[in-house]
Each structure stands twice: as C-alpha cells, then as structure tokens.
C-alpha cells in the first residue's frame, strides 16, 4: 500500500504565483488534513475534511484553499504565494475519531519555498 502520497515533493515559487498541492490516500479514510511544519512551531492545522465534499478551517487557514471532490484526494491551493508560506506541508488521513483516536497517517511532506 502506498498510504498517503503527496505531490510535488519540492517546489519553488515566486511571490504572487499560485500552485496546488495534491494529496492522495488509498486507505479509504474518511478524514483528511493539511498541516504545515515550521522550525520551532511544530505542526499546525491549515484545513481539514471529514468526508467527500466537506472542508473546514483549522488553526492557520488564511491564504490557503482546499477541495475534497473525491474521497481519496485532498487538494491544497495557494492563490497568491507569499514568503511567509515557505514551509513543509504535510497531508494526513484518518479513518474516523472513534476507530483510531488521535492516529493520523502522514505523507512524506512537500517542501515549498516562496521567493
């Protein structure tokens, strides 16, 4: 099983450019998440989804949009990239909050640099 796959793994953008990060999971999980990881900040939740067609804001949603058109995919979009969005982005999935409480399955990350 591939688990959670993120593409691309690396990307360099110029300020103002847009891009989309793609996350795909093959575990038939209901819940999906986008986190960003910054030095000294830990992981912070950007947006999440509790099922196909649903999305909700996390701790740091500003400047990002998401879509969950298919259960297995969760897209993270940056409409106008800013240097403050330079980070490592992690996608994660979870079956539900009862079956596996607190257990998220993470991808290997996407490193984004905004110049």
């Amino acid at each position, binding site marked *: 099983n591939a688990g959670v796959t993120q593409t691309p793994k690396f990307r360099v953008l110029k300020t103002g450019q847009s891009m989309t990060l793609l996350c795909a999971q093959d575990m038939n999980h209901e819940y999906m*998440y986008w986190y960003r990881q910054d030095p000294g*900040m*830990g992981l912070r939740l950007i947006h999440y989804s509790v099922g196909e067609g649903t999305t909700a804001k996390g701790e740091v949603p500003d400047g990002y949009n998401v879509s969950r058109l298919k259960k297995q995919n969760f897209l993270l979009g940056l409409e106008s990239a800013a240097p403050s969005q330079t980070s490592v982005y992690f996608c*994660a999935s979870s079956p539900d909050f009862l079956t596996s*409480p*607190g*257990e998220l399955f*993470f*991808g290997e*990350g996407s490193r984004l640099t905004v110049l």
Partner: protein
Amino acid sequence: QQQVKQSPQSLIVQKGGISIINCAYENTAFDYFPWYQQFPGKGPALLIAIRPDVSEKKEGRFTISFNKSAKQFSLHIMDSQPGDSATYFCAARVETGANNLFFGTGTRLTVIP
C-alpha cells in the same frame, strides 16, 4: 498561542539512558494525547497514545505518564538507542469528532553510542 507546550527543544542522551520529554496544556476540551515520532525526510508517525482517565501507559521501552490535575504529560524512553534519534511531538486531540490534533513544538532527540 501554542496550545500544547513542549520541552526541551533538544535532548542528547547516552545509549542505554532514559530520555524524558514533557508537555503541558490548558484546554480541558482535549480528550486524547498521542505522541508522534518523526525521522528526517519523513512524515510523523504515531508512537503511543493515552486517554486522560489513565495515569500511565507503557509499550515496550516507551511510557507515557499523565497527570490530569496538573495538565501535564510526558514521554519516557527507557534504554534509549541510537535508532531512537528522531524528533518527537506531543499532541492533544480536541473532542469535536474530527480527530483534530494540536501539536507541541517538537523535541529533537539524539542518542549517542
């Protein structure tokens, strides 16, 4: 504002020693407390987790101690090995039904032979 405070930021332990990482929280709506382990270039992976009605949970060399009244919990790694060298994150789940986690800032553990 960091909802889960973690210390120390980094830790160096001799092989065979005990590694201790501490976390504290304020939000009483947290209902589950997992620890994640992350190796360089990889995503975090669940290591061990505890519910707030349990004071201690042990899995192999890893033990979580939980003090509900003090709103503190800690990870103890017994007989630390070089292969345990990684970054460790404590986390807390909000009881909203979405399995959302708030993470601590991480502890980089180095176990020297």
